């Protein structure tokens, strides 16, 4: 898996991959078909594991040579020792979790840095939909209110608060639209929020 290939497959992942240092030990929560870890392993000499629950995706990860552990994110995190990873990825998965706060605390426990992305609920078409009195349905939130797997709706501003609370310092925050960063009015114009976080070490 090379960079251009990743960019055509998943532009958002290609952008995020820049934030992962070469040769780092990476945990990818909800790793899907393993495309990100495949790129990080072959393109950036990283090592690591993916956690994925979906039966159909496990063989795809295996075929790519990705070390995938079939568990839900919470159970998967519980299997891992403290401070095991340079970077923990939690990409477009957080909004589906029941216990977001404890998951973020577990991420801080096992990793030094984390990259978290989720659909930005404050993206302007979502705001327009709400002003019109309807739940937003868009490319980044493609479900109806009654069949969505997304349990949590958050905005860029909301997430910053929680990150602080669980002991993660925000290093960078970028809003992406179609995989490209949005600098002007990001909490309006970005459909995907991406945070680069670092574990806050207790000051002595």
């Amino acid at each position, binding site marked *: 898996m090379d960079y251009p290939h990743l960019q055509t497959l998943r532009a958002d992942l290609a952008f995020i991959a820049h934030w992962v240092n070469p040769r780092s030990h990476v945990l990818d929560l909800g790793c899907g078909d393993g495309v990100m870890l495949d790129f990080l392993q072959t393109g950036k000499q990283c090592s690591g594991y993916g956690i994925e629950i979906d039966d159909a995706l496990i063989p795809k990860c*295996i075929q790519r040579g990705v070390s995938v552990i079939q568990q839900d994110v919470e159970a998967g995190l519980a299997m891992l020792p403290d401070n095991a990873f340079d970077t923990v990825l939690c990409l477009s998965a957080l909004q589906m979790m029941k216990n977001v706060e404890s998951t973020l605390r577990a991420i801080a426990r096992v990793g030094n840095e984390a990259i978290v992305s989720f659909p930005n609920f404050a993206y302007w078409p979502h705001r327009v939909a709400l002003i019109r009195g309807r739940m937003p349905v868009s490319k980044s939130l493609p479900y109806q209110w009654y069949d969505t797997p997304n349990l949590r709706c958050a905005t860029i501003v909301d997430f910053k608060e929680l990150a602080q609370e669980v002991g993660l310092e925000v290093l960078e925050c970028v809003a992406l639209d179609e995989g490209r960063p949005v600098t002007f009015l990001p909490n309006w114009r970005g459909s995907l929020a991406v945070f680069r976080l670092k574990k806050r070490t207790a000051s002595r």
Partner: protein
Amino acid sequence: MSALGVVSPQTMHFATPLPLQSGAQLRDYTLMYETYGTLNAQKSNAVLVCHALNASHHVAGLSNADDPKSLGWWDNMVGPGKPLDTNRYFVIGVNNVGSCFGSTGPMHINPDTGKPYGASFPVVTVEDWVDAQARLADQLGITQFAAVMGGSLGGMQALAWSIRYPDRLRHCVVIASTAKLSAQNIAFNDVARQAILTDPGFHGGNFYAHGVVPRHGLRVARMVGHITYLSDDDMAEKFGRGLRNGKYQFDFGIDFEIESYLRYQGDKFSEYFDANTYLLITKALDYFDPAREHDGDLTKALAGTKAQFLLASFTTDWRFAPECSQAIVKALLNNKRRVAYAEIDAPHGHDAFLLEDERYMNVVRSYYDRVWQELNESNAAAGKEAA
């Protein structure tokens, strides 16, 4: 019908004594084995398949052309185009010593006494089996297996390989297995052993001389074992409270379908399985605990492993539940080993590892696809170096 057609077993004799974990030794011994596929010139495509309690070297294909029931025990897994594809790999199945399918066992003559070993056959462990298998690999010129694979007790052997001979396997495939038996597992095994040991036909293990077989004991042992292989749901669905004759008989014959099934399984088993072998193999199961010499720390026990791992478990397996596989995965994660783990939501209990399930088969198939890809890459690299 198997795609492999009819296969014939081979034997190899070893005159050098095999030192055993117990301190005893096996003076000389013969191993019965089968192979499928072709060993490549680099001898790098060999896969060893280790068998569980009542299975043998006959992994795949037919042993008898006229008998469709003579199909190998993992024929759905091993063969041309199967998940472990014999068009790519050279697959070896070995019958372990102490078993009753051709390798040296309690029914054979003890060279020291000139009589059948019987109860005096030394207690063998998973590690002893692995040592014997390693000698077979030596004789076949295989210094490193592409993979060692097994389910249940076979998975224990694969795991023991990764610990004992870390340089001799690139991949370790452990299915529906565990790094140690629970007290409950041991309890079931002991009920089975007691059934055999207290059968008057057992004659202290020397029943061969009396021309009898402790059939009742074997039967009960198999019935108990069989209960633990199936899930509650599976049994409920297959048998429920179904009655053999539609009404209660008010006696102690067969009322329920489940009774009929278990008795049939027990009867069948007692006709082909050796009672001493059953005792030996259940002991090997009970004793397996590689963490034992590391104060119970499995992470330490697996610290010397070098292989990449695939583990799979089945959600309804209560004999070796997913938690058992998870414990191994956890220890491997602690050691930063490469490991893939699939937890398959199948209804068939422990037996699921022998059954057809698309998700399960796909996991194993993808893993061996990957092993094959690596094998070709390393062959290509070796070719370049040589040129």
